[in-house]
């Protein structure tokens, strides 16, 4: 998969887009005050940013009404979220950083990083994961030198699917990649584009898994979960 380089948005607008993306996934739509609270800014600055995003046709926005993303807005937000996810997991897996620190650093880095760099990081991360010797060597070296003993969590390069998520991890569904009856069934059950999904656990045998979707619990096999592409939080 190749990322297009559409760096037309400023860092702060990307943050706004992210805030709408996650709020809309959790609640169906976002309100200006939710966004202001989440980003720690004043309501007046939100209005301005939303107008700009609306001009760029990324959001549907009318004053005093719920805000939703357009199809383009959703794709753009998913791309930024994906970049954030890769960078953070790279920091954790390869560099052995603490998860909280990695999250904070990723928030800053994601905006100035080109998509091709993210792509390369993902490739490197995948390579390290695929070679256990190298992985343990790298993490040992970093752990010895920087005294951070965190053992890297399981990570794969995006696009990730629900089957790749850790227990307790949340993600937004980007697409259901499957045909016919199964895809329809999944979407009918609420696993559609833009919905927030959380993996709750697995059966004692490791398969099927339990997820929370639209406020209820659903069980599905890993093969079915692998048909659902997501952006991890």
């Amino acid at each position, binding site marked *: 998969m190749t990322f297009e380089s559409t760096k037309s948005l400023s860092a702060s607008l990307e943050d706004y887009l992210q805030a709408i993306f996650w709020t809309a996934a959790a609640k*169906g*739509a976002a309100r200006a005050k939710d966004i202001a609270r989440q980003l720690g800014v004043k309501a007046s600055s939100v209005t301005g940013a939303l107008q700009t995003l609306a001009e760029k046709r990324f959001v549907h926005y009318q004053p005093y009404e719920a805000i939703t993303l357009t199809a383009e807005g959703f794709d753009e937000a998913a791309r930024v979220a994906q970049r954030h996810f890769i960078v953070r997991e790279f920091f954790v897996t390869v560099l052995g950083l603490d998860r909280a620190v990695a999250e904070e650093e990723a928030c800053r880095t994601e905006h100035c990083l080109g998509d091709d760099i993210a792509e390369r990081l993902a490739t490197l991360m995948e390579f390290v994961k695929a070679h256990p010797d190298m992985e343990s060597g790298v993490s040992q070296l970093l752990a010895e030198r920087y005294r951070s003993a965190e053992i890297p969590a399981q990570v794969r390069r995006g696009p990730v699917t629900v089957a790749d998520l850790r227990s307790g991890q949340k993600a937004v569904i980007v697409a259901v990649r499957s045909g016919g*009856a199964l*895809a329809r069934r999944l979407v*009918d059950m609420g696993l*559609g584009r833009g919905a927030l999904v959380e993996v709750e656990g697995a*059966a004692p045998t490791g398969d099927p898994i339990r997820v929370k979707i639209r*406020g209820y619990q659903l069980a599905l096999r890993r093969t079915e979960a692998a048909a659902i592409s997501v952006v991890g939080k």
Partner: protein
Amino acid sequence: MKSITVALAGNPNSGKTSVFNMLTGARQHVGNYPGVTVEKKEGQCTHRDWRITFVDLPGTYSLTAYSTEELIARNYIQEDRPDVVVDVVDASNLERNLYLATQIMEMDVPMVLAFNMSDLAKRRGLEFDLAQLSQLLEMPIVPTVGNKGQGRTELLDAIVETAGAERKERTHRVTYGGEIEDELLRIEETLGKADGGVVARYGRRWLAIKLLEQDEDVTSKIRSGEVLKTVGQSVEHLRDILGDEPEIVMADRRYGFISGACQETIQSSVERRHDVSDTIDAVVTNRILGLPIFLLLMYVVFFLTFKVGSYPMEWLETFFGMLADGIVRHWPQGRAEWLQSLLVDGVIGGVGGVLVFLPNILLLFMAIALLEDSGYMARAAFVMDRIMHKIGLHGKSFIPMLIGFGCSVPAIMATRILENRRSRLTTIMVIPLMSCGARLTIYALFIPAFFPRHWQGPMLWLIYLIGIVLGIVAAKVLRLTVFRGETTPFVMELPPYRMPTSKGVLVHTWQRGWLYIRKAGTVILALSIVLWFAMNFPKPPADRLSGLDAQEARQEGLRYSTVGRVGLAVEPVLQPLGFDWKIGTALIGSVAAKELFVSQLGIIYSVESADEDSPSLREQLRANYTPLVGFCVMLFCLISAPCVATVAMTRQETQSWHWALFQFFGLTALAYTVTLVVYQVGRFWL
């Protein structure tokens, strides 16, 4: 008095059944939808001066053509046009429940929304602006608590009001967005010339929506090539610009519509991330504890069914014994003795023999109802799915198989929970291999007769294990050959845990138990009578019986009867298995009911009142057969031809004699082959 018909729709686990029971009380009629074995329940009630007939539609999440249940629900609404459709929604899980409502709305029928489990929703901290939601969806909304009987009058009021009201055009509806709406319009415009009848019946917009979704059932109803061509172009075009199947995008848009409606009308006062249900799940589906908990619960179910159930079973046996004795004692001497025998040996022996299992069956159904109503059943399927999936079945298949250890008849009935027909048929076919309670009487006679005490336990285990292993192999083979095809996706809701209500459990237990009783009263009664005739006629001529005592006369009578003759005739066929005509005759009798095998052998070996504890019969067996033959008899009884009640149930549930006979002869052939190999190999070794 005005009469109206009301259909009840809703998601599984929405409490639809409890609302149906609340509305109709005990006046219910259970049948099937024509041609399929999806249960159709009807009930009646009168409210003010209205006579209301309720039809309980199958519980579904959606209304696609992909599943039988969904198709039935949809066709009922479209073709039978009920006066009102009541959609029962779980108020504590509104978004997904309203998804079905948006699809019923599109069929343009008068609707009422029953906001069920509204007490639970309140406790979860959800507050609804029902007035506004009702305005948005353009239908009355009535809060109900089905299992507590709350909201009955209000719901009935809303139903009759809606039925009597004038029809209005909807102003709010799901809009699918510019591109899709354009194509819908295009399709709507081309519709009509060649398909006037279809358009009049289903409505233009609904047809256009279904056609764009590429719904097979609706597409097959359209004759006009022009329409189909337009649809093809529209689908192509939309696939291009949306990058996905129109069907999927449209489903997303419906959820979008619901999100919008919920956004404005629901307030969540408490943000509760983890509730009690999640905590229970963390334990019950735990990596280490999950399987032990499952096994423990299954053990409890079995203990309840067989150990606790054995006491009332004894009472029933005593009762039928006394009934038979009473008839014999009060029968006028020397008059119509054949009728006495028919009543005592045929009817009471046959039907009574099945009815004594009623306590076990009721307890088993009660245990299952408890597991289902509490929400554990879905978790059990979740825990078992990996294993069942390996043999080509579904996580839910284990439930009927488990019941099969009690009795195949209710087990086959329980396969209704399986959605996929291939999975369901496979499960039905292998259920008789789960050794049922009746076959236990055969093992209880044979094992002590041939095996030393310390081998008796392991022997019993071995027999059960052989059945399970054969069941697994047979299921796998069937799924690879006769029932080849994709496995059903395991996308199953795990409903929140709930405290089962005693009323709900009793109603469930009774509804299933009644089917069993009805079976005993009809099919089994008829077949018992037929078999009695076959065992007693023709009578040997008097000169053959001269000089014989009563025991010998009975033996001679059986030998001379239809069953005895068939037993003698098949002896050469059974010889390679080590069986003689006596075992053959008993085997034929066991087709009526497996436990008859024991009493038949008793008659043949002239043993007074034979049962599995009879020492003299055991001695006779030991004197006549080797342990190998004893084992082979058990093996054959385990695998071979299921009893007539099972055959009748398979016929009913598959709607075809074809599958019932396939099961009957397939299993008999399997039994013959396995027993033949075991006997011949065993003879060589031992």
